[in-house]
């Protein structure tokens, strides 16, 4: 008994089991957790991640939450009183490890031979004279200026270091409740990584709520317009939904979390998962039109015989393409690869079993009254004319396509990388505008940390720390650098007169350093500087705040720091969220090239295997390579960066695009085997399979198009570039492949010696 007959016989169990399995996976969906942390993007084995965790284990969390108040003059009593109330409550939050603000920082200075230690803001000024006195005091206090107060006194900040593992939502809700409790003058904004992460979480949820229904609606629309028949809508769509349930349900089952790029998985299912169903329903209608009286089992046998193999091949090449994402360094990219491969696999199984079973259950459609005339629609007519033109001048066609690709591809040199999560938000998004304020006026919201281990009281280590601090401070994009060495230097400045030896410098002896540190310990809270040095003075941290967190700048800075500190035996590691972003940026580039090359190799290998000739691998590689070049070129010209989402495009594109070339070559080979000349075979393939390829490509493009409404620029760029790249693949399959095969006349299409012929328009 043939498989088709089994499917017909067990059609009900197949349908029921298909739904039950899919629903079984779907039951896990409510357990999905969202992970917006940039640290989750890179593998645990990445040095910057390991180092950051080790540094945080010694010095506490490095994530900062900033409450920023802005006004004409933040020294206005009403603003300061409000800030004080908020600061008092904020510092008591259990999620906050330590707080820096005008009300917690100190003033250490030398006055007439005395070392004066006091509060940075000893009182809230109420008169003009008091205000100006305080302004002068603060302006001279390097511990507060540019850190918790902007130079123009229009911004003041409360900076909280957040305990590792804090629930961002609970923390932000608590902070917002505090702010609401103290209404008043001054506009308040929140900034820092907890805000960024929570916004990512909120926007992921928003994207899911908007993009999924929109993609399904568009798919519903295109299926309705294409088929004007409920079977053509219901069957492919149900495959999409069932495969989406499985791929999304697998996220918690694998113990994974929903990251920013994971939103691509359900959209990919919608865009790609319906392909095979569309082929089947189209062929089902064709068979019925041709043989209206065919029996049900006969219909299914023919359907199975005609499409099982091409569908299988298409799906396998797509799966192979997306599985190449497993070689990507970005962790969620690998997860997207696995989830989409399984989802596509499930869609394939459903298309080969569930759809035929459903066709066996549903009442038979009435055959269309339209006859299957060649090139009767404008599209068919266009494709016919295109085929004729290509077959007449294949070399010129290929040359023009090559030149256009080359010109567009030149944009590749302008392409850049962006791993800074802040840049994923629109320029007018509050997350971005607040971050810009912090970067411009308050030292920056991202950090790089250098950990020193050894005898921290050793003046040599102290002086090196100070040298690095002063050198790094001069670099572009560095907002503020802090270390215990600068605290010791500050004490010397306050303790000694300018004429004294050792003024404004590190003491010459270890005992001198120890005594300065002891003095600082007596003057303040024990936790004042535990972020800079550990309890036993065995580890110290040089904390660099970055005010230009663009990937390019952070990478340059990281390189500079590595070179600067290369030979220092006391430096054990460099980490920090800034460095993680920078390393992720590097990973994006590596991951992009690696996954592209591996996708290409796999699909070309598969194409070679399908047609049993190496030439097939080459012919498949050419249009895909050109499509990649076009994609990178357009990204370069239009300043769309490589980011965590756009670096996934090539693998998905190659996975989808290879279908078109394989389908085209398959049909072309069939036609040539049937006796048509290469030129005639090209023309016929174009207006038959070419049309199906067009529908397929348009469906995929429309499937991905809702992504342009995402809240994140990487996802929007992914949507735009996916449409562009699928279009490039379509052109590659419909123009480059015919021209190339006509020029090369590969034997795998004929199984014999090359034939040369011309085509006439009346074919």
């Amino acid at each position, binding site marked *: 008994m043939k498989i088709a007959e089994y499917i017909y016989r067990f059609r009900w169990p197949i349908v029921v089991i298909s739904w039950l399995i899919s629903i079984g996976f779907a039951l896990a969906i409510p357990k999905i957790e969202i992970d917006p942390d940039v640290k989750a993007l890179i593998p645990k084995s990445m040095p910057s991640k390991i180092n950051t965790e080790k540094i945080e284990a010694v010095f506490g969390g490095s994530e900062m939450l900033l409450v920023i108040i802005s006004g004409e003059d933040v020294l206005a009593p009403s603003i300061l009183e409000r800030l004080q109330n908020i600061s008092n409550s904020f510092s*008591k939050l259990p999620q906050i490890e330590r707080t820096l603000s005008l009300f917690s920082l100190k003033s250490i200075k030398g006055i007439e031979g*005395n*070392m004066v230690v*006091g509060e940075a803001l000893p009182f809230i000024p109420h008169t003009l004279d008091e205000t100006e006195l305080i302004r002068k005091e603060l302006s001279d206090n390097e511990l507060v200026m540019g850190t918790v107060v902007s130079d123009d006194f229009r911004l003041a900040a409360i900076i909280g270091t957040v305990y590792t593992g804090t629930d961002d939502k609970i923390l932000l809700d608590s902070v917002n409740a505090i702010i609401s409790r103290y209404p008043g003058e001054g506009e308040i904004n929140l900034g820092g990584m907890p805000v960024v992460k929570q916004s990512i979480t909120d926007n992921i949820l928003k994207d899911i709520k908007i993009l999924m229904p929109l993609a399904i609606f568009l798919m519903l629309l295109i299926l309705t317009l294409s088929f004007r028949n409920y079977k053509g809508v219901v069957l492919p769509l149900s495959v999409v939904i069932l495969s989406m349930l499985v791929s999304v349900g697998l996220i918690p089952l694998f113990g994974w979390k929903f990251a920013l790029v994971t939103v691509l998985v359900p959209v990919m299912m919608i865009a790609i998962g319906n392909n095979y169903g569309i082929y089947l329903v189209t062929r089902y209608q064709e068979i019925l039109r041709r043989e209206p009286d065919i029996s049900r089992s006969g219909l299914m046998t023919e359907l199975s015989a005609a499409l099982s193999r091409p569908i299988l091949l298409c799906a396998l090449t797509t799966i192979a393409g997306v599985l190449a994402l497993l070689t990507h360094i970005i962790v969620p990219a690998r997860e997207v690869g696995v989830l989409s491969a399984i989802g596509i696999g499930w869609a394939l199984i459903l298309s080969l079993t569930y759809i035929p079973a459903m066709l066996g259950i549903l009442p038979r459609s009435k055959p269309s009254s339209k006859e299957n005339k060649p090139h009767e629609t404008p599209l068919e007519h266009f494709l016919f004319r295109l085929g004729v033109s290509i077959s007449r001048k294949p070399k010129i066609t290929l040359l023009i396509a090559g030149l256009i690709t080359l010109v567009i591809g030149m944009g590749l040199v302008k392409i850049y990388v962006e791993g800074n999560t802040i840049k994923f938000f629109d320029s007018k998004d509050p997350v971005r505008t607040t971050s810009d304020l912090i970067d411009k006026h308050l030292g920056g919201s991202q950090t790089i940390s250098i950990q020193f281990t050894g005898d921290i009281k050793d003046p040599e280590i102290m002086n090196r720390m100070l040298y690095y601090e002063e050198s790094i401070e001069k670099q572009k994009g560095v907002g503020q650098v802090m270390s215990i060495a600068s605290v010791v230097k500050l004490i010397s400045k306050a*303790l000694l007169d300018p004429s004294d030896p050792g003024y404004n410098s590190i003491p010459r002896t270890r*005992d001198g350093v120890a*005594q300065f540190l002891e003095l600082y310990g007596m003057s*303040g809270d024990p936790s004042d500087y535990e972020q800079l040095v550990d*309890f036993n003075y065995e580890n110290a941290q040089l904390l660099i705040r970055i005010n230009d967190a663009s990937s390019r700048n952070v990478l340059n800075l990281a390189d500079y720091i590595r070179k600067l500190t290369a030979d220092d035996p006391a430096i054990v590691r460099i980490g920090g969220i800034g460095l993680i972003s920078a390393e992720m940026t590097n990973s994006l580039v590596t991951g992009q090239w690696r996954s592209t090359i591996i996708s290409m190799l796999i699909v070309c290998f598969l194409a070679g295997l399908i047609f049993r000739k190496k030439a097939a691998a080459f012919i498949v590689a050419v249009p895909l390579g050109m499509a990649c070049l076009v994609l990178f070129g357009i990204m370069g010209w239009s300043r769309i960066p490589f980011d965590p989402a756009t670096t996934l495009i090539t693998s998905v594109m190659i996975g989808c695009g290879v279908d078109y070339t394989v389908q085209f070559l398959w049909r072309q080979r069939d036609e040539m085997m049937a006796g048509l000349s290469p030129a005639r075979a090209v023309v016929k393939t174009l207006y038959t399979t070419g049309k199906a390829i067009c529908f397929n490509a348009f469906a995929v493009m429309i499937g991905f198009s809702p992504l342009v409404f995402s809240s994140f620029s990487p996802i929007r760029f992914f949507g735009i570039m996916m449409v562009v790249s699928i279009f490039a693949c379509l052109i590659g399959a419909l123009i480059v492949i015919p021209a190339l095969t006509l020029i090369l006349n590969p034997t795998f299409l004929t199984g014999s010696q090359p034939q040369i012929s011309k085509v006439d328009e009346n074919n």
Partner: protein
Amino acid sequence: MLIFSFALGSIAMAQSTDPKAIMDKSREQVKLSGLESKTILEINDGKGNQRIRETSMSTRLYPDGTEKRTIIFLAPADVKGTGILIHDFVNKEDNMWIYMPALRKSRKIVSSEKSKSFMGSEFSNSDLFVGSIDDFNYAMDGTETIDQQLCWKIKITPATPKIGTEFGISSKTMWISQKDYVPRKALSFDPEGNPWKEMVYSGIKLMDPKAGKYMVSKMEIKNLKNGRSSKMDMSQMIFNPSVKEEIFTLSYIEKQ
């Protein structure tokens, strides 16, 4: 104002259950006129790390209420010889000088931060001293036995929010022995009313039998919020009402 010695009088007068009166009586007997001792301060970070500071201390109480203290570091070696001189006045800000052997000179330190920690420990003025009697309100909260001593449990709250802010607490509960009026335990609450620091007093010694004054030689404080703790252990205590005046001068700490 005495920070390191916490002596209270064993009062022969009839016991009163008025909490303010109890605290007032304790306060009146709190200061020893002169004391010399060695102190070991142990600071624990709650993660298994420890710092030990060994000092010699001398204090003298003057008739106008001024108290002068000299602290000389004996260990660790890198801070040995560091000297601190404090003139603690009743109605004006303290004077504090520090001598650092590495600099070979003394510097006056002006700090208004009274509620901050002492020498990087969990102890602060607000833990060691409850302020003047009128700065707080007192309420009797029953009796409890602590360290086999029947104690009054007295709840102390700042009289004004400003005082609360200055001392960094919302309230404090003290357990005062009914036998010798010496505290056995104190629990302070943070501004939100959460238990914050717990202090246990032990090693209580009668220093001045004539005047009936005691001395608390061991104090241990635990920060219930961050797990840090500190211990202060005083030894070689000598009650000496006439500690030499020259000990409380800059030239003395510079010579050590």
